Structure formats: structure tokens, C-alpha cells
């Protein structure tokens, strides 16, 4: 069964490694640059979308985990929070995404978008927990707000992932 899965995965179109790297760097750069010109885009976490897409299509929790750690640490390095905060959260997100991808039909857009919304809300809760418990900060958190933003991320992922699917190539 395992060998059959591996054969199936080999047949799936994949995103080139260089494109994955470009996706991560591009998501980070856009997240840093665009909010300066369009403040409302501050609400979107493009790195999360990039991570979920890459981790799902790699179909490996190890690859998802290391991808999450890398993008999370890079995101931390560009903010004033301690390095490792987003790193831990995105490591877990990447791991769980890679693990779930072995059981879920990832080419179904609804499933991917739902996962993005779920992981956004989970990330916000985890971030609030870490900032409150670990760092001792007083940070306000609104669950309804997180749910609304999670839904917006899911909608954005629907279109963004469809665009990224066009870049995938069959090995």
C-alpha cells in the first residue's frame, strides 16, 4: 500500500523546488511591502497560505515541518517579537498539513480552503497563548474576528491555490 502511495505521489504534478522557495520569499516580501501602501492587507498572512499549499502538496509531514520552521523563523526575524514564536507555530502547522495531506484529497479546492481557514484560527489562538503565557504580554484576542479573518483567508486561498496549480508540473 505504501509503495502504491509513493507511486501515486510520483505521478502527481508538483511545484518545482525553486518555485517553492520563490513562493516563500515572495510571500514574505509582499507581506512586508504591501501593507505600507495598502494598510488593510496587514490582516492577511500570506506566509501561512504559502506554507499550507507547499506542505499539502509535498504530502510529507517532515517536509511540511521544516518548511514551516524556515518560513516561521524568517517571519520572526522581520518583526520585533522573539525569534521562534511564529517558528514554533508554523512548524506545527506544516507538520499537521503534511500529515493530513496523506488522508485528504488535496486537489479539491474546498478542502484546501477549509484547512487554510482552520489553520489561520489555530495560529491566532496559538500566537495569543504563547504571547500571553510565554512572554507575559497583555494581548487582546477576538475569536469572532479571528473566525471572520479565517474565512477571508479561505476565500483568498481558493483563488491563490488555483493560480499556483497552474505552475505545478508533472514529473
Amino acid at each position, binding site marked *: 500500500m505504501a509503495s502504491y502511495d509513493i507511486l501515486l505521489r510520483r505521478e502527481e504534478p508538483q511545484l518545482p523546488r525553486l518555485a517553492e522557495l520563490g513562493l516563500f520569499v515572495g510571500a*514574505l*516580501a509582499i*507581506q*512586508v*511591502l504591501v*501593507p*505600507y501602501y495598502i*494598510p488593510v492587507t*496587514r*490582516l*492577511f*498572512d500570506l*506566509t501561512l497560505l504559502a506554507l499550507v499549499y507547499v506542505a499539502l502538496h509535498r504530502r510529507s*509531514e*517532515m517536509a511540511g*515541518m*521544516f518548511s514551516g*520552521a524556515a518560513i516561521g*523563523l*524568517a*517571519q520572526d*526575524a*522581520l*518583526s*520585533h*517579537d*522573539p*525569534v*521562534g*514564536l*511564529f*517558528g*514554533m507555530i508554523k*512548524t*506545527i502547522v506544516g*507538520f499537521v498539513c503534511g500529515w493530513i495531506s496523506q488522508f485528504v484529497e488535496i486537489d479539491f479546492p474546498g478542502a484546501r480552503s477549509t484547512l487554510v481557514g482552520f489553520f489561520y484560527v489555530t495560529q491566532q489562538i496559538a*500566537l495569543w497563548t504563547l504571547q500571553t503565557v*510565554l*512572554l507575559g*504580554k*497583555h*494581548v*487582546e484576542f477576538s475569536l469572532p474576528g479571528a473566525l471572520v479573518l479565517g474565512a477571508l483567508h479561505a476565500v483568498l486561498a481558493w483563488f491563490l491555490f488555483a493560480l499556483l496549480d497552474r505552475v505545478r508540473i508533472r514529473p
Partner: protein
Amino acid sequence: MLDFVIRFRSFLLLGTLLLAQLLLVAYQVQTDGETRLLRVWAVWSVTSVERGLHGALSGVGGAWDQYVWLWDARQENESLRRERDRLQLENQQLQNAVARYGREEELQQFRQTIESQSVLAQVIGSSSNPASREFYINQGTEAGIHRGMAVIVADGIVGRIYAAYPNAALVLRIDDPEAAVGVLLATNRVRGVVRGTGGSEQRLDYVGINVEVGVGDTVLTSGDDRVYPQGLPVGRVSQVRNLGRERYIALEPFARLNRLDEVLVLTGGPREPLPVTPVDEAPYILMPNPAENPLTEATPPETPAMRPGGLGTYVPMTDADRLRRIYETIADDQDHEYGVTRSGSPDFNRGFAEADVEVGPDD
């Protein structure tokens, strides 16, 4: 054991990775030292891209404005209309330039009015953390900018330098939940602390419940935090709500924090170290002469007494000198010699003739 490790290697790796990052976070939280090298590299690489993109966008925009648009205008119009369009275009460019230089000139003029030394910087990007209120500027340690310096505009204060890199710096805005500013109310000089909430308004804390605060009151920096010089405008009170024994005071900042183009970083002034040069010593004060007593009424200041023999000049006597002279006079009257065994002590109640007391310093 090996089977266990192989079977759960992904979970073990996950745990190791999380533990390493947790230790990393804990290490950073416990220490408040210099900026990490990882951040320097990351910020250097990203800000280089940002600066490049910024320059490229400016160049493309300039090329479009100056050539392409002008070429289109030449194609559309042949004579006077073409000239008119070109002039309109130039006028538009000049207006844009004037507006930009106006902002910079306004900042420069404002710069002359403040006592602190400052560096003019442009905003080139925002942070990667969606929840934080911070942005990057295009000047860093090479321009003399360091962590903790105040960032202001002509309208009011903006924030402080959170991290400084060679060619960029991260500015933490005053509306970030981690930011706090020592302030005072302009009307009654009552001091307090303004904290960021992450929203469009800030909160004014540590103002007594009995202090009179009204909507519209101006809030200035107090200088107590040694980050912002005293007297810089911070914002205006926008809301005052009494909540039992507490009070919620909301503040609307003067500076447009969401739309900043150029800012000033205060590199000198109140943050300078305390002066090490000692201040001038206080002048010596010569006290007046000892009060005169009846035994020396005939003595100075009107008629300075002379030493016996007339060789000396008047030297003021202290009360102790006078008392000693009285005791010596009493002892002379009674033929007593102090310090001699079995001689007893003179009778101090017998008194003495005032004329016997010699006025003047002892030999």
C-alpha cells in the same frame, strides 16, 4: 529502542525542533542585549530588496512621468496643444515635487525648532507581523541611529527605534500594544502614561480619578521616559469614561501613524548620557565675627583691640577663647594654677573685675 525511534522519527524531530525554538525564545526573552545576527542578516537581505524595489518603482514612475507620458502627448498634439499638455504635465510634476519637498522642508524647519539632533529618514516598509504596529526606515546605525531613539514628525511623536541595523531600522509605533510614553496634560501638567492598544486610539493611564480631564485636552510628552524630549505633542483626549473607581481615557494621536512618508529620528538630546564634568563648586561663605559679649564691648568692630604691647592687630576671638580668658582671669585673681596637683579648683562664684580680662588673642 531503534524501532521506536524509526517509527516515531517524525514526531521526535517535531519535538526537537519545537524544543529548540522554545529555548531560542526563552533565551531572547531573558536577555536584553544586542541585536541577534540572524535578524541582522534577515533584515539586511529583505531591506536590500525593499530598497531596490523602492528605487526601481521610483525610477519606473519617473521614467513614465517624464518620457512615456510626454511621448504620448507629442503623438496626440502637434503644436500648441502639445506644448500646453507638456506644460500641464510639467506643472503636475512640479506640484508633486513641491508637495514632496514641502513635506521635507516642513520637517527640516521643524528640525530647526527642536533642540535635539536628528536624522531625516524615509519609510520603506512595514513589519512581517500582522498584529504589530511597526515599520522600517531607510537609515540605520551608519547614520548614527540606535535602539531606543525617538521617532517624530512635525505633527507629533511617532514611536521609537526598536532595532537598528546598518542601513535600516525597525520603528515601534506608539499605538503598538507594547509601546508606552510618559506624558503630561497641557492644561494642568498632571503626568501619566500613554499606552498603545493596537487600535486607532491610545489609552492614557495613571491619571488620578479626581484630576479634571476633558475631551479635547492636549497631551504632551513629559520627558520622564528619557526617550522623548519634554513638550512634544502626542495627541488629544478623545474620550473620557468613568468606570466606578477607575477611569478610561482614550487618546487620538496627532501624527498620522498609518500614513507616514518621512520621519525624524532624534539622535541626540535627552538621551545623551548624564554630564560627567563636575559643576562649579559653591562659593565659600565667610561668616560674620563672633557675637560680642559684655567682656569685649570696648573691642571691635569700632575700636580694634591691640595685642598687649601694641604690636599685633585685632584678631577676632571665639566664644571658647573668651570663656578660656575668663577662667584664666579668675585663676589669676585667686592665685590658682590649673593642672597642679592638690591645688584644688578656683571659686568661680567669686567673680572678677571685668577690667582684669585681657581682650585679644592669646600668645
